[in-house]
């Protein structure tokens, strides 16, 4: 009757919990062992450059237009000697970026990508505005597949 059903349910319930001690733990010890991310992961930005090291970005400003939070990306345009524009200064304000990937998706020249680095914590706010050479360095880091050295460890 009802009480018997409850007692059986209690025993089955306790056995189900007990059964889990034979399974391998699923937790990951974070700083030592890390989760392997796949290539579509949207982490810190990086400005790509073609084979002879010139930035692909032509400072067209599409990324500024599609970014949901205003004034996250600031670009200073300059006319290069061969008539094409290139960015003299390109900065992304990481405080305002929501990592939605719109800039990467709608950039006509594939000039910006998102690396797999997600450890962006830092002491002062100003270091969270990535200027052009950090973005270039990020790209070269990702090519030789070296993740950013996390200082706090």
């Amino acid at each position, binding site marked *: 009757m009802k009480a018997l059903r*409850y007692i*059986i349910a209690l025993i089955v*319930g306790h056995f189900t919990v007990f059964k889990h001690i034979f399974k391998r733990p699923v937790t990951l010890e974070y700083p030592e062992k890390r989760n392997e*991310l796949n290539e*579509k*992961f949207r982490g810190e930005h990086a400005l790509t450059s073609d084979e002879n090291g010139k930035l692909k970005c032509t400072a067209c400003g599409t990324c500024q237009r*599609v*970014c949901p939070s205003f004034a996250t990306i600031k670009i200073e345009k300059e006319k290069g000697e061969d008539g094409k524009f290139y960015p003299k200064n390109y900065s992304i304000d990481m405080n305002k970026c929501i990592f939605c*990937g719109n800039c990467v998706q*709608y950039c006509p020249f594939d000039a910006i990508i998102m690396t797999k680095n997600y450890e962006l914590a830092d002491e002062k706010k100003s270091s969270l505005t990535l200027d052009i050479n950090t973005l270039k360095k990020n790209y070269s880091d990702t090519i030789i597949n070296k993740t950013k050295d996390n200082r706090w460890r």
Partner: protein
Amino acid sequence: MTNQESTRMKINIGPQHPSTHGVLRLVLELDGEIIKSCEPIIGYLHRGMEKMAENRTYLQYLPTVDRIDYLGGFFNAYAFCDAVESLAQIEVSERTQYIRVLTMEMNRLSSHLLWLGTFMLDMGATSPLFYTFRDREEILSLFEELTGQRMMYNYYTFGGLRHDVTNVWLEKITDFIKKMPRKIQDYENIITDNPIFVTRTENIGIISKHAALQYSITGPNLRASGIEVDYRKQNPYLVYNELDFDIPSAENGDSFDRYTLRIAEMYECLKIISQCVAWLIENPGEVVSSVKQPLLKVPEGEFISNVEAPRGVCSCYVKSDGTGTPYRAKWRTGSYYAVQILPKLLENSFYPDLMAIFGSLDVILPEVDR
């Protein structure tokens, strides 16, 4: 104050409380153990989603839409995309529809899993939380592989998707679906017939049929009160009419029925997912939309799109004035009305029942405050 009044104790279950699923504040008036009156105070997580829509283009507003109900990002994204696509008469290929149904049903499963974990934690059982989060972790890593982010996907675009689904990813889903029914059976073994759980949730917080309609309750809470209404069956959108799945329902609308109903819904999600995956593997097709997203101009008009979100019907009203930015966007979400009925359910109920009732309503605060 009358003498009866003076024995009352005002307890403030504040915004920062371990078990209020976000930042809901309940001002309770207690007479000993009995809750006399309860007043929910909301607005602590108000981000002004509707005002934000008025100064952003359609494309800029799309990523912020996932944050309205961050446990059901795909549902809000689909509601907004469906409204804009209907206004701008953008056609969507059948493969996109199947992928949208697939991702939405997986999102419903992960949202129900999180609800089950936190509901059991409120009731005091600690281990189901870790089991449900372990299974939810698998779904989130599958989403991360597909869209690049675990919860803020930004994967839908107007008229299609950002990129196609790979067959490798679909294989991973098939063996995820194979393991999942055993896992759900595990939860049922621990919880469903457990005498303590049953006595704590049976005929507690009963929502009658009339009250459910009066307070415009939708989704699992409505179906638990015996009114079998599911927008996926009643006015089918996307490809739900081609999939066969049935709608679980229950009779007396107490916490226990809401629990059993959501568990049954998890099994239904698995059925739908397996059908979608089977269809997707067979017929490839074009998925990326031909519409130039950044320059999208929506012709004049207004539209309300409804979608069956895990917590009730989520409808999105978009009024466009022909320019690139929406003139007005209004969101209707399920938990908003669940919080409204909470005081009525808590009248003269016991203080420890608060967690049993509130947990079973599956309320998420970003949806309430928008």
